[in-house]
């Protein structure tokens, strides 16, 4: 699915976190959002599946067109936006009281997408896609809390993929993980972009360089520059972008 953002503004109470964001994201690509802490990149991804408005006092204005449909139109039910636009959070948020299987099956059951044999197959397929099947296939009914941090994060990815979304939002998915687990998540992104449009927030510029087709640089709630990843890192047009990617600030 293609995403087109037009004049997007977002607030927390009276504090404006995003100022007039305009951006196009092509289908089946990986887009990295970079920028210093507090620049609005997390707020921006949370606007893409209408999660921002769940925060008390938060407000959004503007348009987000997904395949031409404005997800902020009055006729849209946020629940079904989120069902098609999956999200992976910074801290792995597996549900600790549920089994590994039930964590992945949760979204499928909630939406009544499958049951019985079909459900089992879908869960297995999702775990395969998230490259964690081999590690958990013998313990599907044990608590998800017993997994390592990296495994938990891949389980969260499996859970997000299980409802077969078209877009996957990832908010610093590897920042709480060790380098090996990080590498696994990055390889996963490269595989997943064959079927999904991926938007990933990252603090790690090498990571953006490795996985992203295009990179967007945020500063103080505005998009400063956006382009091919190689261009952003080697020939940035704006002074602020150059300062940031070369490590002179941020």
């Amino acid at each position, binding site marked *: *699915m*293609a995403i*087109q953002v037009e004049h997007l503004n977002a607030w*927390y109470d009276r504090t404006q976190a995003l100022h007039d964001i305009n951006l*196009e994201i*092509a*289908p089946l690509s990986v887009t990295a959002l970079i920028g210093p802490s507090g620049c609005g990149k997390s707020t921006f991804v949370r606007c893409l599946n209408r999660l921002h408005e769940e*925060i*008390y*006092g938060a407000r959004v204005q503007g*348009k987000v*067109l*997904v*395949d*031409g*449909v*404005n*997800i902020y139109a009055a*006729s*849209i*039910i946020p*629940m*079904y*936006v989120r*069902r*098609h636009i999956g999200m992976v959070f910074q801290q792995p948020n597996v549900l600790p009281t549920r089994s590994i299987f039930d964590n992945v099956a949760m979204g499928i059951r*909630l*939406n*009544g*997408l499958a049951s019985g044999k079909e459900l089992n197959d879908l869960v297995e397929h999702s775990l395969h896609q998230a490259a964690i099947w081999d590690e958990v296939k013998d313990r599907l009914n044990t608590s998800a809390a017993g997994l390592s941090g990296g495994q938990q994060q891949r389980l969260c990815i499996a859970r997000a993929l299980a409802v077969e979304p*078209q877009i996957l939002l990832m908010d610093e998915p590897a920042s709480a993980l060790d380098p090996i687990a990080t590498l696994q998540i990055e390889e996963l992104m490269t595989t997943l972009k064959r079927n999904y449009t991926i938007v990933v927030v990252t603090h790690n510029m090498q990571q953006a360089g490795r996985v992203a087709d295009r990179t967007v640089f945020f500063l103080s709630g505005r998009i400063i520059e956006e382009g091919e990843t190689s261009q952003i890192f080697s020939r940035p047009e704006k002074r602020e972008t150059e300062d940031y990617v070369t490590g002179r600030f941020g």
Partner: protein
Amino acid sequence: MTTSTAGVAKNPFQPNSRALDARRRGANILAITLTALFAVLAGAFLLYLIAYVASLGLKYINVNFFTQRPVAEGETGGGWATALQGTAVLVGLASLVGIPLGMATGVYLSEFGRGWLASVVRFLVDTLTGIPTIIFGLFAWVILVVPAHSFSALSGGVALSIIMIPTVARASEEVLRLVPRELREASVALGATESRTILRVVIPAARSGILTGIMLAIARVAGETAPLLMTAFGTTFFNTSILRPIDAIPLRIFDFTLSPFPSEQNQAYAGALVLMVLVILTSLAVRWATGGFRPRGR
């Protein structure tokens, strides 16, 4: 690839099944409505109670009520000043003993309490919470009233303080446990001792929770009647010594409710109203002081 022509595009964000969608959204609305309904109902009970007590008691609340001592039926004037004084003295005495003991117990249980001693203390504290309060009155009667051959404010204060201890201790323990380990480590990593860390970092972080626990304990003992019957006893005179009997709002309510005179019965409602307003004001003051009025979220 990009179709930016909004309006012609088909909405992909549709439920898979209309029936399931209707059921899910119906259940959602039902759940929200029910919680709101029950919340309003609970609030309505309280408001009705206050309104009922106020309707009978409000006309007896005037300057005399707060400044004069009770007079015999038939005389004009008279008030509850002795009861107000007594409740203030009794709650003050109880707080003086109950709050430090309760907080120290809470700190011990949360910060140092490992092993069998902590388990025993915790069990005893839990048991104390469940004991009927009249037993504490009986206890204070035996150890203070009987030897002194006199009812006294002191014995009432002691009975109430024992009631406060478990409430304050458990509330403090619970909120202190919620203080993240990282905060303690931040302080210890700077070379602070355990006790200094607890005093300067942990307790301040749990301040509003501890204050809430203390406030609940105070509100609870301010309304206690049974343990005061055989300790503070009640009197219609102002008290100048904590070794002499003292009046209390709940004791006076008890006394006047049993009175054969309608005017005294209605004055009992006035006393009940004052007691409720005092408890509500304490609650509001603590909320305000701890910043509890700020909206949650973020």
